[in-house]
Each structure stands twice: as structure tokens, then as C-alpha cells.
């Protein structure tokens, strides 16, 4: 079996041409490709809000004034009411030594 070099490469003879990598150039290339059916095949990312990791549920009834206060505070902070309950539970555990 032959194992010698069939030929040698003179790296100095190899040149890279200047290429336009601007977004405008890439857009032109894509438009040209799309007309020939060379379209995006990458999987599309799922749209919309991601599902909440909060899947547990509590069944609590509280006095009307308290439920209103919780709703207002959650809205003010831009969080779900469950977040306030989680924080309250953390404080309760610290206080009770659970």
C-alpha cells in the first residue's frame, strides 16, 4: 500500500477572498435562495409564554380584606399570588424552626 505524500501543499499559495458578511449581504443571499426553495429548515422556537413551574396548589379561603390585599400586592410587584404565599411560607418556616 502506498503511504507516501502524493503531493505537498504550499500554504503560501492559498488565499482566502474577501467576503461580505454584513447582515444586508446575508439578507440578499437568503432572498435569492428562498426563490429557489432554499428556505429555513431550523426548528421554529415555541412561541408564547413558557408554562409556569408552579404546579402545586393550595386550597385556602381567607377573609375578603386579606384576599384583596394579597391581590393588590401581587399586582404591584408583578408576580403571581402564589409567590407571596411561597414567601410567607418561608418566613413561617424560619419563625417556627421547621
Amino acid at each position, binding site marked *: *500500500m*502506498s*503511504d507516501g*505524500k*502524493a*503531493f*505537498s*501543499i*504550499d*500554504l503560501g*499559495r*492559498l*488565499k*482566502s*477572498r474577501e*467576503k*461580505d*458578511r454584513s447582515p444586508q*449581504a*446575508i439578507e*440578499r*443571499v*437568503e*432572498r*435569492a*435562495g*428562498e*426563490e*429557489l*426553495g*432554499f*428556505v*429555513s*429548515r*431550523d426548528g421554529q422556537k415555541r412561541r408564547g409564554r413558557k408554562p409556569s413551574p408552579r404546579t402545586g396548589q393550595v386550597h385556602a379561603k381567607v377573609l375578603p380584606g386579606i384576599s384583596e390585599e394579597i391581590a393588590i400586592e401581587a399586582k404591584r410587584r408583578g408576580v403571581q399570588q402564589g409567590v407571596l404565599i411561597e414567601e410567607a411560607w418561608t418566613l413561617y418556616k424560619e419563625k417556627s424552626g421547621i
Partner: protein
Amino acid sequence: MPTIVIASPKGGAGKSTTAVLLGTELAHAGANIVMLDCDPNHSLTLWADRAPLPDRIRVLSNVTESDIVRTIKQHDTDGQIVVVDLEGVASRLVSRAISQADLVITPMRATTLDATIGVRALQLIAEEEEALDRKIPHSVVFTMTKAIRSKQHSGIAESLAGQGIDLIDPPLMERAAFSALFEFGGNLRNMPAQGNMDGAIENAALFAQAVYKRLAQGV
């Protein structure tokens, strides 16, 4: 250093085999090679995982539409040749890769079906040349050819040559050693003998030499 893009929207045309033969032969001749595996079938990566990579070769896997231009730019530097193995479909990834090429090679089996679908890559190159206002050198290499040339092969070759398409000589013949690269990894020189190894090595080396000449002189 040049970027060589192996492109054909036709699956099974021999893109990955062409990429591996070209990369390993150019590396054997002294060049540093970065091979980009853009094929969701991960053919190059499968080859790379079979055995330790030959000297002077690196393989980057999972290159996608969103990072192909950036990845080529990152590796298109002095001292190394980038070989891009694309997926066998018409996709935006193919358009983007071709836009960054110094040479596009379209492997094509000498059949009417391969030629018909492979020509779409040539049409895309022509459109991109116009869009970018630069020449993108490109060539066709026939793959899996037989020792005796068929009438169909001759007809397709004449038709392409008549349209001014550059045909790489020699074509890549159908050889057990070429397909065995994906079984054993490495290169033709260190794999267990498969059929006529001297013939396979000579074929691959002359093909790589023909590509090198095009890179050095411009097609």
C-alpha cells in the same frame, strides 16, 4: 485560507465521503483542516468518532443555520483550510454557507436524478454571485463512478461542460475503501485494507490535488 463548501440538495450524492476524502488528503499533504459538520445526520462526526482524527484535522459538530457564517469567519484564518459538509436538502443553511465559500464543490452521481437535483445548487450559486456581486468558484465532481463510463455519465458530463461547468478530474470512483472510512474512521492510509487500496489512495490524492490546484490558481 480558503473555505471549501461541499453542497448538493440531493441526499446520497456523496457529500460526506467527498468531504472526508478531501480533508484527509489535504491534511496528509500538509494543510491544517477544520471540518464543519452541518449535516443533521452527523456523518462527519460519526467518522470522527470511529478513530483518533488524523494529524492536522479538527471536526466541529452541530453547526447550524444560525451560526454557520460566524463559525466560518472564526476559522477562515491563515494556516488552515475550512471544509464545510452540508445537509442534503435545499435550506437557508446551504445559501449562507455558499455565500462564504472560496470554492463550492457539488458531488454528483452520474445519474439523471442526481444531475437534475444537483443543478439546483449551481443555480443557487449563480443567484448568489449576482446578489453578492462576486464570483463564487464552483466545480462538480462525479462520485461513485464505475471503471467503465456509462452513456448516461458521458451525456451528463457533456451537458455540464457545454454549460461551462467545471468538472473535477478524476471523479471519485465507487470503492470499498471510501465507504469503509465511515466504519473505521481515520484516513485511507491507516485503515485496514479494503479492496484495491493503492487505487483508492491514488484516486483520492489526485482528486485532492485537483482541488488544491483550483484553490491555488482560481477556477
